[in-house]
């Protein structure tokens, strides 16, 4: 029996442009123990294990994907945030402004769908873009029975996480700039 795991992607981008040398980047991150490493275009990709992939680009962006069961999501997001800040520190990136983008693939129904149905009488969710405050942009895409929740635009992971849990629980009082796309052409 294989348990479903949620795929989580944590992406951090420095607001100001940085240009790192890839060999220096690898040297600075020698604390990372990996099973495989490769360089593709501007990215250094570290395979930590089957379920954790970490990439750092020469412009200072960090991308980590992992898969965990539902009950470990909160703990995992905190660790991903801590790890990315440690990488920034090791790379000696002096920018203190970052954009965080968190994406989670959910296989269970989310209560936000009920909120849309009750408040706006929208029950054909495909792609929904909205803001819960002026700084955080959110997109939810429904693909068959799965949802891809993508939240971006803040420096503080706690605020991003709060939006995520509000979407899951449906604990939402209002949304801004709501845009619903009913169907998509592929």
């Amino acid at each position, binding site marked *: 029996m294989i348990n479903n795991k949620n795929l989580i992607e944590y992406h951090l981008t420095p607001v100001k442009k940085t240009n790192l040398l890839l060999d220096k980047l690898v040297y600075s991150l020698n604390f990372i123990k990996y099973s495989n490493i490769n360089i593709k275009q501007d990215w250094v990709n570290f395979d930590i*294990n*089957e379920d954790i992939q970490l990439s750092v680009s020469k412009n200072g962006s960090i991308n980590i994907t992992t898969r965990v069961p539902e009950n470990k999501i909160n703990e995992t997001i905190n660790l991903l945030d801590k790890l990315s800040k440690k990488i920034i520190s090791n790379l000696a990136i002096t920018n203190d402004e970052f954009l965080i983008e968190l994406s989670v693939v959910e296989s269970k129904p989310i209560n936000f769908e009920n909120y849309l149905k009750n408040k706006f009488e929208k029950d054909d969710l495909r792609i929904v873009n909205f803001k819960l405050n002026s700084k955080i942009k959110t997109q939810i895409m429904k693909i068959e029975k799965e949802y891809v929740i993508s939240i971006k635009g803040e420096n503080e992971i706690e605020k991003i996480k709060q939006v995520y849990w509000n979407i899951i629980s449906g604990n939402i009082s209002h949304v801004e700039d709501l845009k619903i796309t009913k169907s998509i052409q592929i």
Partner: protein
Amino acid sequence: MTTELKQIIDLIKNEHPNYSDDDIKLAILNHIESNLPEIILKIKLPPKESSIHSFVESLKRARSSVRDFRLTEKNSKQELIHVLKNVREKLLERGETPTASTIAGNIQRIDSASTTLEEHLLATDTHIATLIDKQTMSESKASENLKKLEWLSKDD
């Protein structure tokens, strides 16, 4: 194969020069036939990749391609948006506000369209990863993953 067999026949012929190649071939075949059960048990063949292993490897390569595509997409988008934002700022400095607004709209549309593609890629990544789990019958390594992340992120 023929060359290697000929070498064996030549070696035997050195010891038994009065026999023809055909005699030696027949003798070899008779010897193999009479010792076949033992040969089957003891024969050492090179390891061959199973079809499942090969399938899993192709799934892993596919997953890696999806991830590479997603990361390239993200970097290209960031680079493009950065360039367009500079154009917008220059237009605003020159007082060309309507054109700057058009560029702002373009930036927004590119950002949203690209996010949609990224999310499709993320969903594809999930599906392939689940397929790999099913093929390899690997159970959740949640505790192992969390320990790994804790270890990597610990303060020096």
